[in-house]
């Protein structure tokens, strides 16, 4: 092996670093460190001048490790890595030392301490750099097809989004018909148009699309593999059909809460949920004259803390529907707060009130009571403004309940190795920045599977997930940063700790040359290193963050204390 030759480049960053840290002192210090072959300071290492200097020094001094002490790897690492690569040095032989954000900028009034700290950070960086190893990025091909689970509005839209780009799509729907939950809905907010008018053309497009295979009456039985190469078993009528896809979109939706035990639901025939109400009148029942709608049933309570988001909208929509058909009807909406956000909903709220729908606020501590024997006849509620109880006649009581996560979400979550949140909905990778992705690559989510979403939200999420899923498929390959875990099979004793901790299912115990040992699939590994920390023997390691590298940094930091070089 050639001798380790480290080049250290200390950046002044104009005055940003040099104004506090005594850069020349750091440079002189760096020259004394083991294996350092060349040190220089640059006004701006990231400038073309700085970068070409890195390239030149690599050539001139035969550098095989490069350390830049400047700003943060989170913004500048790719740039310096590229410079190394241009000079023929594997980019993983580069190490970053942060002496700006973590030093000069935060110790502006203490140049002596800042300089001391910068020296030690450089010492730690050089210590790690000495043990860096060249890495190959793992590249794997992506099978040009996608699986969409769920044939509701979200799933159908996502399928079309992919198929219209020429990508083969398998759409798996559990029911015998496409459409999902909103098939049960009579009319859609806000225009009151019939659901069929929206649903039919969409389903038609999906059914007739050359690139889409619709699997009705089918369920996903098993999913193996990883981004680019998922093996999916789809079961229909006891028959298992095996599919290969490169990406998966979860669009399984949610279901309406059936509030058994609340407001005598399921005991009294004329106490129904909003969906049941819609279904009833879809079938042409007479419009009732006295209706009491109770909102927030089973929502925003200790057992289910979330807001259903569009239940208020549904209540307003249905209240208007009744009033428009039966202006003489008495319609009360008992609510905790009316969440009529945005433009259209607020307008409808106003219109409902103009039509004579009465909105009364109830106290969750003292909720409305259903009166009647054998059927609901009236609802008693404490009128908060009048400060007394009133009794509202009720021919029909409609309970507004939130959507809840589907029962089989845990099963799907295990299969796909993606997490669920506390309420049982699928949990996205990042609430704000990655709202329709999972941290497991190649798996995406849209619609109410994530949390209750209305149609426009489902559609835009479906577009987004289709766009995201199409990236790896169209690229044809996925490349992972070479910071993945690697098991030394000779010393692995297969205790299985790594398998347990891996959030991505990337580690498995397998029979190999050295018996049963842990093996990492680099295509699935995301490089968190949790398995390394859990491995008692040190057989599991992470490229770029292995024990030797990190321990050498600790040793370098503790140098004066132990009187010796760590490692």
């Amino acid at each position: 092996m050639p001798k380790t030759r480290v080049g250290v480049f200390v950046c002044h960053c104009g005055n940003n670093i040099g104004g506090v840290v005594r850069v020349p002192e750091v440079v002189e210090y760096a020259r004394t460190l083991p294996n350092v072959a060349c040190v220089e300071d640059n006004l701006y290492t990231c400038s073309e001048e700085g970068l070409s200097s890195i390239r030149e020094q690599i050539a001139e001094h035969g550098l095989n490790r490069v350390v830049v002490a400047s700003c943060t790897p989170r913004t500048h690492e790719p740039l310096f890595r590229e410079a190394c690569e241009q000079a023929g040095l594997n980019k993983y032989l580069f190490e970053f030392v942060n002496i700006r954000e973590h030093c000069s900028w935060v110790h502006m009034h203490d140049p002596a301490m800042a300089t001391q700290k910068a020296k030690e950070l450089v010492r730690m960086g050089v210590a790690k750099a000495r043990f860096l190893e060249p890495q190959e990025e793992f590249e794997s091909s992506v099978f040009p097809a996608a699986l969409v689970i769920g044939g509701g509005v979200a799933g159908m839209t996502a399928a079309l989004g992919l198929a219209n780009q020429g990508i083969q799509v398998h759409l798996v729907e559990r029911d015998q018909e496409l459409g999902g939950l909103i098939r049960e809905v009579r009319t859609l907010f806000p225009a009151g148009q019939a659901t069929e008018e929206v649903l039919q053309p969409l389903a038609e497009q999906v059914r007739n699309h050359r690139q889409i295979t619709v699997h009705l009456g089918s369920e996903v039985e098993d999913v193996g593999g990883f981004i680019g190469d998922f093996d999916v078993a789809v079961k229909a009528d006891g028959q298992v059909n095996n599919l290969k896809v490169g990406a998966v979109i979860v669009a399984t939706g949610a279901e309406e809460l059936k509030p058994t035990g609340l407001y005598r639901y399921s005991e009294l025939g004329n106490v129904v949920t909003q969906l049941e109400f819609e279904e009833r009148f879809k079938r042409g029942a007479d419009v009732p004259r006295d209706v009491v709608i109770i909102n927030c049933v089973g929502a925003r309570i200790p057992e289910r803390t979330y807001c259903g988001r569009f239940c208020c909208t549904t209540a307003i929509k249905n209240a208007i529907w009744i009033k428009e058909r039966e202006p003489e009807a008495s319609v009360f909406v008992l609510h905790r707060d009316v969440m009529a956000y945005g433009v259209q909903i607020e307008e409808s709220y106003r219109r409902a009130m103009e039509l004579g729908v009465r909105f009364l606020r109830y106290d969750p501590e003292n909720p409305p009571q259903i009166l009647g024997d054998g059927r609901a006849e009236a609802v008693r509620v404490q009128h908060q403004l009048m400060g007394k109880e009133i009794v509202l006649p009720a021919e029909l009581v409609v309970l507004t309940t939130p959507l809840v996560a589907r029962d089989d979400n845990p099963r799907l979550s295990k299969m796909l190795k993606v997490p669920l949140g506390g309420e049982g909905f699928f949990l996205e990778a990042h609430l704000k920045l990655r709202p329709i992705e999972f941290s497991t690559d190649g798996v995406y989510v849209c619609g109410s599977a994530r949390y209750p979403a209305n149609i426009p939200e489902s559609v835009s999420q479906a577009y987004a997930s289709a766009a995201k899923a199409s990236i790896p498929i169209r690229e044809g390959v996925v490349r992972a940063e070479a910071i993945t875990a690697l098991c030394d099979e000779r010393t692995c004793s297969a205790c299985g700790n790594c398998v347990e901790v891996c959030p991505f299912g990337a580690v498995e115990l397998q029979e190999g040359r050295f018996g049963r040992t842990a093996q990492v699939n680099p295509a699935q590994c995301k490089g968190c290193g949790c398995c390394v920390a859990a491995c008692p023997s040190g057989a599991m390691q992470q490229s770029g963050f292995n024990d030797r590298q990190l321990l050498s940094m600790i040793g370098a930091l503790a140098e004066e204390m132990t009187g010796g070089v760590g490692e």
Partner: protein
Amino acid sequence: MASESSDEGGNGYEPKILVFACNWCSYAGADLAGVSRLQMPANCRIIRVMCSGRVRPEFVVTALSKGLDGVLVLGCHPGECHYSEGNYFTRRRGLLLKNLLQFVGIEPERFQVRWVSASEGAKFADTVEQVTEQIRALGPNRPQGGMHSTEPGDR
């Protein structure tokens, strides 16, 4: 505590603290503190790891035994881990290790775990400040074998 009876403590004593920060939240939080020019004591040295779940307890034990005055592990808030679960392992490990170290008589301040998100530059600065002052108050770490921090000015 050691410093009270120690001639090495006193005014010039500067503790040396090792910080592990996860790339996605805490390291970014530290960057933000820098971008915001939040001033803080210069006693912490960060080792960047991809996830706080990478920090094996052996690192903490070794660092303290080699005489570093404190170890601070920073990760994303639970539920916000870039790898979705890594910091939950950090949390369990941290709880147990803290108790174990305390059980063998190591001051609990010398090993701490905190959650710092990418947007919490100020929390990062506060944490560094607090931890540094706590450890400064303890005085030099004296691991087995009597190693200790160097005298000020001796570096």
